[in-house]
């Protein structure tokens, strides 16, 4: 009873703070100075039409490297927590195959989902989207595959190879920025190209391709881990 009272009090106090925030909130009428710099100088400096991309990949590129690292660690943590038991002392029923409708639809949709994911991360500097979104789309395609074909085995060596190679190349591109341009993860190691075309914005599309591959393979590995061992046929 006392506990409930404390919970209630906590919520009331937090709500009081929040209502203060909400009541005294007034919409901004112009950008802050930093954002103004990003919006007015960014396109000419970096050549990316999508300003969010230029902030994520270049101005705050180090944060994104950290973010990719956090994602990697969480994927590794999930893999550690849900590692497959070796001893097959529990007899598990074989999983029911998916219906023909799901299987056929998955066959039809899979290539499109993958192509769309690649499109999203290749065009990250021009349109809404980018490496993380494209990677998530690719991983959802893998999820579709696993739903339609429960017995399918993902190639762990392929996933691991893609992930390590793209993570390594991301850092290499970042270090090249120190050598050839202004600093770590500077995108001006390549010519900026004509503004708004696919081959523009220097190294941003390349970085986003690596990020997309890395996120796609990591999330696929996470999704695969969350399949119970039951789906695995006993050897």
């Amino acid at each position, binding site marked *: 009873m006392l506990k409930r009272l404390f919970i209630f009090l906590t919520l009331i106090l937090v709500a009081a703070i*929040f209502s203060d925030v909400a009541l005294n*909130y007034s919409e901004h009428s112009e950008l802050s100075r930093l954002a103004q710099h990003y*919006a*007015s100088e960014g*396109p000419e400096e970096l050549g990316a039409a*999508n300003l969010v991309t230029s902030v994520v990949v270049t101005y705050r590129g180090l944060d994104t490297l950290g973010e990719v690292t956090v994602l990697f660690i969480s994927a590794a943590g999930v893999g550690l927590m849900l590692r497959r038991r070796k001893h097959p002392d529990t007899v598990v029923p074989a999983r029911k195959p998916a219906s023909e409708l799901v299987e056929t639809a998955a066959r039809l949709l899979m290539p499109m989902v993958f192509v769309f994911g690649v499109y999203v991360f290749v065009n990250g500097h021009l349109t809404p989207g980018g490496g993380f979104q494209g990677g998530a789309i690719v991983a959802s395609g893998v999820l579709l595959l696993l739903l339609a074909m429960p017995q399918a085995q993902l190639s762990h060596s392929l996933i691991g190879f893609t992930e390590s190679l793209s993570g390594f190349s991301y850092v290499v591109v970042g270090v090249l920025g120190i050598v050839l341009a202004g600093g770590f993860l500077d995108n001006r190691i390549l010519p900026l190209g004509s503004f*708004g075309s696919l081959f523009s914005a220097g190294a941003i599309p390349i970085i986003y391709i690596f990020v997309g591959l890395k*996120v796609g393979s990591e999330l696929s590995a996470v999704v695969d881990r969350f399949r119970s061992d039951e789906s695995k046929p006993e050897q």
Partner: protein
Amino acid sequence: MTGLPVSTYVLSCGLALILIGLWGLLTQKNIIRMIIGFSLVDTGIHMVMIAIGYVTGGTAPIIDSAVGIKDAAKRVVDPIPSALVLTAIVIGLGVTAVMLSYAVSIYREKKSLSIDECSESKW
């Protein structure tokens, strides 16, 4: 336009979501429900951040035929909170995945999803 500015609604909804999620975290016993509460808090924070980055009459910070390079600084919303939320969504996803894998491990160990079963480290 009459009434409150649009970002006030987004801000209030975000704050309400945070409260609901906090309530869920504090009162629920089922681990899965607690994780859902955490996700609600997460989403609420994203909405609050997006609302704070909104500029009156602003549009998406992408330069194309509609928003020229010259007037970009006057027409777009703040790109920094958007970039932050992009980061936060990915981190939230990673944290949720790790929490769910803990839930799976706890269920394997205790055959129950109730948080009351995990009393070893309770003081």
